[in-house]
């Protein structure tokens, strides 16, 4: 306060300004953390952030356009045949699945079980933007304006990606399942055992499997649908290694996610079922 002379007002002093700004920051943080009260502030400020994102994306878009323009016809034909083969493969699988689905439906009807409604999804594109912080985030090009909400499940064709963490007006941040702050209710497909998968930075780990439980390397981990955020039965990861915890009460297994997080271009947003969700 030594800079405060008699003819200066208290409100002009740097310390006062500093304290006021820090107080605003603190209240914003508390509002943001607890009750989503800061969402309107976020929405308005996110409009100012869009030009910056566009500037970063622009050279990448240009590169893609140039790449398409310069790629040879032979390359395109090759890609085309490859895609056709893939399509035939998947169509064959679908044919097999149709009969299976019908059979499943019949059995479910006999048991009076609730039918599983199909997923409603929409496509969002991933912006390739550096995330200079401790959380594993990706940015997608949809936000509150498109009706995205916090906790919405995000997938791609390979498996589960994560869920929406922070919202903006026209973009939102998706937290990956490998983030250390993320937990995902899962089940082992082979045995149906349910547990929780925690992110550990590079892969996910299942820390709470009792030593007596049957779990093997190569087991497929799918979402269990608990918590009503992720629909049931989505592929998540494959068990890679199993170790027993030091106090011999649990076995810790590490699973490698199917999705390749380093080369995401488009993802699917899962919309919640409009009627009753299958609750086990």
């Amino acid at each position, binding site marked *: 306060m030594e800079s405060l002379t008699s003819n200066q007002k208290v409100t002009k002093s*740097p*310390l006062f*300004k*500093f304290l006021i*700004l*820090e107080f*605003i*920051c*603190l*209240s*914003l*943080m508390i*509002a*943001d*953390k607890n009750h989503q009260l*800061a969402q309107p*502030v*976020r929405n308005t*400020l*996110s409009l*100012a*952030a869009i030009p*910056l*994102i566009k*500037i*970063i994306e622009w050279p990448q878009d240009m590169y893609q356009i140039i790449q398409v323009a310069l790629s040879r016809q032979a390359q395109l034909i090759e890609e085309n045949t490859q895609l056709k083969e893939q399509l035939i493969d998947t169509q064959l699988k679908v044919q097999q699945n149709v009969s299976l689905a019908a059979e499943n439906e019949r059995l479910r009807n006999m048991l009076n079980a609730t039918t599983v409604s199909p997923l409603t999804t929409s496509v969002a594109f991933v912006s*390739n*933007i*550096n*995330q*200079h*912080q*401790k*959380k594993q*985030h990706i*940015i997608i090009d949809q936000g509150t304006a498109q009706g995205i909400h916090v906790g919405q499940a995000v997938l791609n064709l390979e498996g589960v990606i994560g869920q929406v*963490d*922070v919202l*903006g007006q026209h973009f939102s*941040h998706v937290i990956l399942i490998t983030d*250390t*702050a993320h937990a995902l209710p899962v089940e082992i497909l082979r045995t149906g055992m349910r547990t929780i998968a925690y992110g550990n930075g590079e892969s996910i780990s299942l820390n709470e499997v009792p030593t007596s439980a049957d779990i093997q390397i190569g087991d497929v981990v799918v979402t269990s649908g608990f918590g009503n955020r992720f629909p049931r039965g989505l592929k998540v990861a494959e068990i890679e290694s199993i170790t027993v915890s030091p106090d011999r009460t649990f076995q810790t297994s590490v699973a490698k996610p199917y999705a390749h997080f380093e080369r995401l271009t488009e993802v699917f947003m899962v919309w919640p079922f409009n009627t009753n969700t299958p609750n086990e």
Partner: protein
Amino acid sequence: MNKKHKQGVPYIMHLSILCALLLMLIPWPDAIIKYQPHWVALLVAYWSFNTASNRVMLVAFCYGLLLDILMGSLLGKHGMSLVALSFLVTKSAKQLRMTSMGQLMAMVIVLLFNDIIIRAIIDWLSFGYKPAVVDMLPLITAALTWPWIKYLLDRIQVSYRNSS
């Protein structure tokens, strides 16, 4: 002359901080990201030192919030650390002007370290983040880039003053 110079400085300031924001957003390879200095903090430190006015604090606050939006972090995290940085540099700017380049650099590094600590504490409080030694790596590159940034921006201001 002096007045004209004063009018030009805000443009250079905003332009340079926007460039710093873009530098932070560019997707670098993973190996570089670890060493990437906190560009915005460096620029805020420079401008607080250069102008020694507490108007920079408000600028730091605004860019901090913008950074929070872009990074998806807790709203006000970067704002808080940048305002603190700006305040400390502004307070000691007069003394720092008298010192040598090396001492000034050491002071800036200490203040940037303080900036990292504030953000680590906020992360720890908000989602239980445990700090790692890797978080300190940006300080090395910040130390290496600081003289260049200072020289470059000083030159830009001088040439701007001469041209107008």
